[in-house]
């Protein structure tokens, strides 16, 4: 028997993927999913960061088309970017195996929304498996690969912040799968999704889902904890752990697969219960489906679809306690590091009362007091499009104050198409884009990206120079300035640009304070070529 280990949910997914014979992991960093690929690499797995989740999913799909097993990791909002791949590869299916590991963030520990990935599973027709602790993170990762290979269908492994970042004991299996031998099998009707092919593949997908649902009824990863009372709770993920602790005397059906659902099992479980509850985090996804099948389960009060659940909150649901919940004491919020290079830029923009269309990264913290120097943040790359939209319609005096600000990793993720729009449809007053280039993906823990010149494991690769790219795309005025040592020049360049009707891109380049030492050591070990 292999030794037990203490692993976080993310570490357990990495180990599970390795033991499942996964040939390649891809992804884009995003809390709480980032450590999966990093650990997978440390364990000896082949993995790479992609520019964004869509590209990551496409690479993983190619691996699976070649007859190998692939994993793609991302946070919940990353699946919005990769959704185009997900929906149609559900039709095409795959040859080897393809697992989308998607980490939701109920309670918004580090995200811009609380979207529920299970809805993507249902919308795309892709099975969803939900681990509730580290052991299940290991076991269910392996199960996801097994199901994907058996039905030639992509499978979503839905993690949540609490499962990803809780450390617990894992007993790995002795059975370790060897990677498959990839080979190309031509299947034009199966992989070229023109309407004539896709109509047939859609019918095939629905047939697969019916089979998987039947399998789930009898062989699925579902457990019944028999209680002593006549209360029945249907639950999934970490919520089921809270529910078992909150009410040990209730019987509890823990669903390991939340799409497609085993309705016979669920309705059979609920049949003789006098009190019935569904305990789940995020949307009432199980409640809606069970009710639609005729199951008599109540809606939980709306506050419980927001935030994480815990033992107290589950007790309140079970008691029907509708009194306002106590507001948890908030600790000190995160903030930009002292002397962060980004801080200088935002202070300057604030001084000139700029309207700042911002983006996703550490620098979003500039929106908080005392800086309060960012006016919008929606999704990866939106700074450019939103800034352009503001410029198109605002009165000229206001339009001239609009600046878009984006980080280097976010620029490579979703900023390139924004620049294409800027060049394609420039506003009458032109536009100013500042790329805050701190030479790393700082927010998620200093991951590499295509403009750092290093791969996931920090070994060198060709570096994309942001200034060269925007020049090649047709931006006339492109400057690279150090926001710390050349702040005065940066300020006058921004002022000049705001008064002109041209397009200006300023790359404000200075390494992240936290990453600078590491970056120097990587550069020393092997000089990168720029």
């Amino acid at each position, binding site marked *: 028997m292999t030794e037990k280990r*203490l692993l976080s949910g993310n570490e357990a997914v990495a180990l599970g993927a390795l033991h499942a014979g996964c040939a390649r992991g891809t992804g884009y960093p995003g*809390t*709480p999913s980032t450590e999966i690929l990093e650990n997978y690499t440390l364990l000896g797995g082949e993995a790479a960061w992609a520019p964004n989740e869509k590209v990551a999913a496409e690479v993983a799909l190619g691996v699976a088309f070649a007859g190998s097993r692939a994993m793609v990791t991302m946070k919940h909002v990353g699946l919005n970017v990769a959704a185009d791949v997900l929906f149609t590869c559900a039709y095409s299916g795959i040859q080897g195996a393809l697992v989308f590991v998607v980490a939701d963030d109920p309670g918004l*520990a*580090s995200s811009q929304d609380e979207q529920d990935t299970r809805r993507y599973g249902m919308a795309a027709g892709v099975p969803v498996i939900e681990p509730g*602790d580290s052991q299940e993170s290991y076991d269910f990762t392996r199960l996801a690969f097994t199901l994907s290979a058996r039905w030639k269908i992509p499978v979503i492994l839905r993690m949540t*912040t*609490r499962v990803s*970042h*809780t*450390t*617990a*004991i894992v007993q790995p299996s002795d059975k370790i799968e060897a990677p498959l031998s990839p080979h190309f099998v031509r299947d034009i009707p199966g992989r070229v999704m023109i309407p004539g092919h896709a109509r047939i593949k859609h019918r095939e997908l629905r047939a697969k889902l019916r089979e998987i649902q039947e399998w789930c009824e009898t062989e699925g990863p579902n457990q019944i904890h028999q209680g002593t009372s006549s209360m029945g709770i249907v639950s999934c993920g*970490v919520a089921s*752990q*809270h529910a*078992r*602790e909150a009410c040990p005397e209730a019987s509890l059906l823990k669903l390991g697969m939340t799409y497609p659902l085993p309705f016979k099992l669920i309705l059979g479980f609920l049949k003789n219960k006098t009190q019935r509850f569904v305990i789940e985090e995020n949307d009432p996804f199980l409640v809606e489906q069970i009710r639609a099948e005729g199951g008599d389960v109540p809606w939980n009060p709306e506050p419980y679809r927001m935030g994480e659940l*815990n*033992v*107290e909150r589950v007790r309140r649901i079970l008691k029907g306690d509708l009194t306002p919940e106590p507001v948890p*004491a*908030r*600790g*000190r*919020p*995160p*903030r*930009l*590091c002292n002397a962060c290079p980004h801080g200088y830029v935002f202070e300057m923009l604030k001084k000139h009362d700029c309207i700042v269309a911002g983006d996703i990264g*550490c620098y979003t*913290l500039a929106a908080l007091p005392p800086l309060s120097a960012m006016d919008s943040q929606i999704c990866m790359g939106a700074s450019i499009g939103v800034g352009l939209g503001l410029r198109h319609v605002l009165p000229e005096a206001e339009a001239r104050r609009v600046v878009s600000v984006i980080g280097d990793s976010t620029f490579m993720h979703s900023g390139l198409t924004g620049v294409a729009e800027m060049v394609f449809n420039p506003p009458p007053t032109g536009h100013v884009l500042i790329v805050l280039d701190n030479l790393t993906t700082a*927010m*998620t*823990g200093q991951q590499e990206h295509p403009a750092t010149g290093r791969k996931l494991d920090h070994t060198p690769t060709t570096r994309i120079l942001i200034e060269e790219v925007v020049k090649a795309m047709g931006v006339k005025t492109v400057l690279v300035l150090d926001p710390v040592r050349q702040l005065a020049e940066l300020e006058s360049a921004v002022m000049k640009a705001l008064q002109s009707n041209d397009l200006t891109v300023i790359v404000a380049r200075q390494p992240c304070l*936290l990453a600078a030492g590491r970056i120097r050591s990587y550069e020393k070990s092997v000089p990168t070529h720029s």
Partner: protein
Amino acid sequence: MNTKETINIRITGLGGMGILKGSQVLAEVLFQAGYDVKKAEVHGMSQRGGSVASDIRFGKKILSPMIPEAETDFLLVVAPEEIEIHRGALRPGGHLINAQSFDTVPLPNRKSLNIAMLGALSRHLNIPVEAWQKVILTVFPEKLHAVNLEAFEAGRRLSP
């Protein structure tokens, strides 16, 4: 040690104080002592100087990874300003181990305060001191062994 089935420990402070490192050491010690253990923390923004808290629960069988309100047996507060945020988490009769108790304790390096506080905690847990030392040696790089072992001892000498 308490004969209650689950023991709940929370370690709290600010980003950069070694909260996650301290809780890693603790969880590893408990795991090696044969307990079921869960350690829950939310990181991601922690490097930006914000509040950080880690819940460690151990016993025969642990379900929820988060300590229910007012059920914390031991509260370790590495940043004194965090006390009020977490005081309500302590169960009646629970132990508060506060950084301020270490103000006059000579430590080889104040950065090892997290481990010194584990030393103080260790007096309450029925785990041999060698087990703690063994984990400290595996979790830290060699150049930090001496300071952390010394800090642990200093914490252990503090009267419980």
